[in-house]
């Protein structure tokens, strides 16, 4: 990927993006469904869009997903 694409990706916004507050409110539900292999992107497109764009919320999701997976073993 060249610098133009990197910059374009940084600046590009998704109108479905629900923002941090709404994504974090539902993060436990989203992570549990994701850990179970459920269709999270289809069911929660606005949260999926947010987690792709927001570094901190994406990190929190990855951490919660890892915790759920560890906890289920």
């Amino acid at each position, binding site marked *: 990927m*060249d610098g133009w694409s990197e910059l374009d990706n940084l600046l590009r916004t998704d109108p479905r993006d*629900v*923002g941090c507050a709404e994504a974090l409110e539902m993060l436990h539900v989203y992570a549990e469904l994701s850990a179970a292999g459920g269709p999270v992107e289809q*069911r929660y497109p606005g949260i999926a869009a947010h987690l792709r764009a927001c570094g901190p919320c994406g990190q929190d999701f990855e951490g919660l997903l890892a915790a759920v997976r560890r906890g289920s073993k």
Partner: protein
Amino acid sequence: MSPADSRGARGQGAAAVLDPESAEWVQMLTGTGSRREVALVRLHEMLVRIALGEVRRRGPQLRIAGPELDDLAYQAAGDALIAITGKIGQFRGESLFTTWAYKFVILNVSAKIGRHFWRNPTVPLAAEEWDRLPDRFGFDPAREAEWRDLLAALQRVVNEQLTPRQRRVFVAIVLNDVPLDTLVIELASNRNAIYKTLFDARRKLRAALVTNGYLPDELSRR
């Protein structure tokens, strides 16, 4: 940004019937006496285990290690325990109780990491590191004349079209690589508000660069 997606995997928005394990957690933690004490100890142990796992998962990206990192995990677990017991009445059974509880400790780890960087900044929060952008975006040195033109246009739009607040947030996060959670503390704000400010800045900057022919419009990308 759009309103929230539809609610809960289990609860569909209303209070769901709790699974037996979650019901037992709620019953013990809202009870009294030795059963509650036992449940609090068990919950704290679980939160510490999750917090330690999380700081180790994030460790390679952080400039924190060893006892300091473990201390951060214990603090996050302690704060999460207080938050969970205080908000247990808000647990609606949309997930397992443990998943809901894990969320508190993961978010507390994030907040503690943000606070750590606020206390130990690697760059002045108000600096403007425009020279970092070529490396950050991976521009090809062979096309330097082109990308210098693009970055000059970006800097012009940042200076002329963003509000002072948008400019400050964009400069801190994009130019200076300040973690968003650190900026939350610096500006006495919250993650949602800072993200929304950055979201609006990104949209405004992209629109200006597209209008001036520096980036492709939506249709040409498809």
